[in-house]
């Protein structure tokens, strides 16, 4: 019995090893025959394509790349592929800045509209509701998220005085979450997959963090914090490091969100385009569709995760900037002695 158990996976592996090339070859053969019947005078694509076919191959790949990039990039056109497209208005530049409405701006406005509608409903429910009533339906669902951000993100990271930063954290969480999710529906675009959007949000976090730090420590404390409480002879090293540190945190926030959202979309589209590049239905059914569904589900999770991480880290930075008053003073004192 034991021997059999050991053998079984090996047998299975052998079967797979025999079957997989067969399937792939059949797929290639079918596409080959298809190509031949169409009388296309080009060698068929694939890994074994001859250098002579490189032009066509490169052309196909470039096309795929173009399509992928087209999906990810911002543009002045909102495309609804088989039905046509909407040209978005191009505004004249103001003070040298092109402020025309792009696809991502429209997506953000959509997000804003959804947020305003949903939360005006929820907010009015709460206004009409007594403290003794329990929330129902939509209000209850939103309350779970709001309560999560309030307690597990804001309160646990910022601590005392977290109420002041709560509106920002809640807004940023729901804004990013909805941007991420709207990027996953067909014809949608991920505004948070654009570095400019994430950078703008990170800049908000940066300013809020610095203002909170200034309010908590005062100008003197803020400047003292830049020295990290070290001896004055180290200031020439410490001050630039601390100043760079101020900027790296929000920069990392911006890059993290942008990269995560972009990468997921590129992976999904690349998986789909594998079947187009190989021109095989078998690859489409066996690889592209299941894997892209898997990545899509992963993306749903990542949408929540990245919204949470952005909010969490914003709260953490604010908490770091405002807390440790006594600790820093103590350190500064110790440095003087």
């Amino acid at each position, binding site marked *: 019995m034991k021997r059999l158990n050991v053998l079984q996976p090996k047998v299975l592996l052998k079967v797979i090893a025999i079957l997989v090339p067969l399937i792939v070859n059949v797929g290639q053969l079918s596409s080959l025959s298809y190509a031949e019947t169409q009388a296309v005078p080009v060698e068929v694509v694939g890994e074994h394509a001859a250098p002579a076919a490189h032009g066509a191959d490169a052309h196909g790949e470039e096309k795929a790349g173009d399509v992928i990039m087209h999906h990810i990039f911002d543009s002045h056109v909102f495309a609804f592929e088989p039905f046509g497209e909407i040209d978005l208005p191009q505004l004249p530049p103001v003070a040298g800045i*092109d402020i025309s409405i792009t696809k991502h701006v429209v997506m953000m406005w959509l997000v804003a509209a959804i947020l305003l509608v949903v939360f005006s409903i929820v907010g009015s429910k709460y206004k009409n509701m007594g403290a003794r009533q329990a929330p129902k339906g939509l209000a209850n669902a939103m309350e779970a998220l709001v309560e999560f951000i309030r307690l597990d993100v804001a309160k646990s990271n910022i601590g005392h005085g977290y109420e002041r930063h709560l509106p920002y954290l*809640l807004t940023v969480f729901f804004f990013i979450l909805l941007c991420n999710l709207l990027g996953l529906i067909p014809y949608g675009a991920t505004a948070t997959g654009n570095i400019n959007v994430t950078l703008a949000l990170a800049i908000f976090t940066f300013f809020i963090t610095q203002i909170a730090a200034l309010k908590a420590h005062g100008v003197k404390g803020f400047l003292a914090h830049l020295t990290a409480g070290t001896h004055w002879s180290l200031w020439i090293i410490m001050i630039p490091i601390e100043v760079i540190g101020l900027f790296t945190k929000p920069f990392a926030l911006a890059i993290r969100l942008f990269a995560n959202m972009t990468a997921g979309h590129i992976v999904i589209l690349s998986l789909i385009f594998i079947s187009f590049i190989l021109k095989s239905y078998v690859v489409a059914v066996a690889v592209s569709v299941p894997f892209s569904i898997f990545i899509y589900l992963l993306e749903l999770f990542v949408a929540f995760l990245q919204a949470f991480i952005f909010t969490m880290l914003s709260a953490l930075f604010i908490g770091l900037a405002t807390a440790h008053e006594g600790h820093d003073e103590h350190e500064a004192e110790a440095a003087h002695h």
Partner: protein
Amino acid sequence: MLTSGIILLEANLLSPNPGLIFWTAVTFVIVLLILKKIAWGPIITALEEREKGIQTSIDRAHQAKDEAESILRKNKEMLAKADAEADKIIREGKEYAEKLRADITGKAQEESKKMIASAVNAIEQEKQRALDVLRNEVADLAVMGAEKIIKTALNADLQKKIVNSMLEDLSTKRN
């Protein structure tokens, strides 16, 4: 793969676009301000109120429990006290009753003793008197018998008869 990498670089994925930054900032600030007014304010105040409400309810429940416990304790104490009181009363009553009974029986015994003593006394006196009377009677009878004997002949038999008859008389008389 290489071409897509080149596309990535060429298509300036990381290129700044101030217009988009501007629109993001504007959109976000407007959303933030409106949501702060219409949603976060009411929701958070409601949540805080509920939190406080729950806390006060819990506090009140604890207080009520403490109060109930103290009342229960007091009740138990009172009950115990009442029990003790009742016990004491019963004991006292019993003691009193016992004492009273003892007193009464003692008195009664004394009384009865006294009565018996007086009865014995009376009996003794009566007996004495009866004996006195009997003695007198016997003396009279003896005198009367002697008289009769003397009156009749001094016959021994006769005398004996007389004495006997006299004694019989005496006995019948006595009876």
